[in-house]
């Protein structure tokens, strides 16, 4: 099974100026376009807020997704609740669409693992993954479980361009090929792995080419065109659910922000490159297109921005008002049942919490 639309690579419907290069797929209607747009804007505003919260000491180190929101929205819109999503750490958009509340995302980056307690479609999804590329093997395992159980569902995992250099990435693709797993691997190629550019990561012409060695299909898509991401990911998920095998998708984008709030990208990349990348970012092109088609206007834009700001502020308020976790949470979830040999350390935690009069103010050291 191959991607059916006969389009040049990388797959693109909306170009950077907002011009339609090819007719949109039938399953992308105006309503859906507007929903795409609203989520893109919401995540952009959330991301700005999260960086500000880190700068003011209210959350810990945060990994911004600015400029890469279309990948997350496209994936989140394409997944079904019965699919499983395995994120890396720039996936707030997909997680939001899976039902992870923005408040939970803040809780997580605020150093509190209760932010990993997902509900809804995300109930069986993995929490975000820090050790690079390891999550790809977990996704392959979940896809294996689906196959063993004859489920007609799919597992989708994301990673960055740096992750494609790791053994875990290759080993997983290889297995997905051999076992025909219902797996979709989406590489957010944002061109930078902290300070190492894509050109120093791999001599492969495209990262999608890495699918060839594994005997699976590889597709390169414009990751800043939410329509293209949605269409290609939807295709790969359909294929996976139908038992037709795995797909590697390389979504081309650009990391407009620092690697994380602990990074300073001006140390290693020219401002001209970043400025040029801003001309290709995903939100403006969709707004331009919606305007051209008379599906959007200034009033709608104003309302959208206000609504998104309110939603984000409510998440922040909810985060800051979250009561502290129990001190013993640090130990109580380690094993299904606390072994007797750890009773002493549990008491030690309680004693220390009392001695330090530990309160619950998030982000305060």
């Amino acid at each position, binding site marked *: 099974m191959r991607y059916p639309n006969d389009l040049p690579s990388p797959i693109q419907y909306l170009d950077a100026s907002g011009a339609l290069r090819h007719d949109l797929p039938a399953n992308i209607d105006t309503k859906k376009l507007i929903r795409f747009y609203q989520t893109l804007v919401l995540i952009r505003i959330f991301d700005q807020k999260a960086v500000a919260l880190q700068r003011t000491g209210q959350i810990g180190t945060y990994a911004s997704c600015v400029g890469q929101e279309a990948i997350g929205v496209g994936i989140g819109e394409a997944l079904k609740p019965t699919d499983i999503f395995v994120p890396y750490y720039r996936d707030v958009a997909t997680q939001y669409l899976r039902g992870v509340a923005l408040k939970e995302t803040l809780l997580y980056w605020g150093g509190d693992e209760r932010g990993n307690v997902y509900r809804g479609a995300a109930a069986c999804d993995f929490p975000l993954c820090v050790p690079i590329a390891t999550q790809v093997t977990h996704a392959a395992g*979940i896809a*294996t479980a689906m196959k063993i159980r004859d489920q007609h569902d799919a597992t989708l995992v994301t990673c960055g361009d740096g992750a494609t250099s790791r053994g875990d990435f290759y080993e997983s693709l290889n297995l997905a090929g051999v076992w025909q797993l219902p797996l979709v691997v989406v590489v957010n190629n944002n061109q930078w792995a902290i300070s190492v550019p894509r050109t120093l990561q791999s001599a492969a012409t495209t990262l999608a080419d890495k699918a060839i060695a594994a005997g699976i299909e590889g597709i390169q898509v414009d990751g800043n065109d939410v329509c293209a991401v949605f269409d290609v990911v939807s295709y790969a998920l359909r294929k996976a659910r139908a038992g037709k095998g795995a797909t590697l998708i390389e979504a081309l984008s650009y990391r407009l922000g620092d690697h994380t709030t602990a990074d300073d990208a001006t140390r290693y990349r020219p401002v001209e490159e970043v400025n040029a990348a801003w001309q290709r970012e995903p939100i403006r092109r969709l707004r331009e297109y919606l305007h051209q088609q008379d599906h959007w206007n200034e009033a709608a834009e104003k309302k959208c921005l206000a609504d998104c700001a309110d939603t984000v502020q409510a998440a922040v308020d909810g985060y800051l008002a979250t009561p502290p976790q129990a001190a013993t949470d640090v130990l109580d979830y*380690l094993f299904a049942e606390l072994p007797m*040999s750890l009773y002493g350390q549990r008491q030690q935690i309680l004693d220390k919490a009392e001695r330090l009069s530990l309160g619950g103010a998030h982000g305060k050291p």
Partner: protein
Amino acid sequence: MGSRESVAATNQTHIDKSENPAPMAATDITMVEAINLALARAMEQDENVVMLGEDIATNGGVFRATLGLKERFGYKRVMDTPLAEALIAGISVGMASQGLKPVAEIQFMGFMYAAIEHLVSHAARLRQRTRGRLHCPMVMRIPYGGGIHAPEHHSESMESMLAHVPGLRVVTASSPARAYGLLLAAIESPDPVIFLEPKRLYRISRQPVIDDGQALPLDVCFTLREGSDITLISWGAMIYETLQAADRLARENIHAEVIDVATLNPLDDDTILASIEKTGCCVVIEEAPKHCGFGAEISARIAEQGLYLLRAPVARVSGLDVPMPYFRQETLYMPDEGDIYQAVKKTLEQIT
């Protein structure tokens, strides 16, 4: 987990503890056959139990621990994976997170290192970091230890690397019956369990084992032999030499208590300390290198909690602080019955 009250009963082998007529006849089998029996029993009892690893399906494993399982339970439940240890560990985490109970085999401990990232960073942490939303009931079986003249990288005893990881249960067996009961317990456990198989003992002897599906507790030491003069603490393959040394000492009217630690994490301090309270001295015996070996943990716990029970310093008999030598020099490395005997005699001489 079993309560401490059940320890006495489980200190004996499976056979010894059943006073009522057994529903099935006991069969004399080797440790590797006992492991095979436990795997088959677990797969029969729970359809979520699946096996994966290199050469485990069609070939039945290089040690034949999974012999016949693919034929009996099908290729979807007994899977030959590509040759990639990190992948084996990683897909086990993924499968376990969705309610399967993967039992992965790493062919030799010398090849487990690529898999460790998944054990440390994911398997051991998944329940903790999701506050119980997901958990990871996987088992990783790893044949380990030397003394069989194997190629390089096939004879390591690196159990303390694993026992150091918070959130991992680490278990090792020293007899066919305990291998059967502990492996069943490992598979039943909702936590990730590393099940270390002392491959030197795979076929060294036979013991009657009843295939009754009875699991042993995962948090107690087994007192294999009672004695009041000295406590010998060991686990895995070294239990064999330790029992030999205890026999020799008995002929000299020195009565050694022999404890099989069995579960390195969590560690049952109580059984060890109770024995030292009785004997006042001990020797800790391990095949691994001494520096930061698991014997160091046991020694430290004895110092912390039982220093005033001791009438002589804690002694350790261990492998050397060298990479496991290639087989021509293996015997220089491996602790033997003579090393244990000498350490006991020296300890007894030091008693105040």
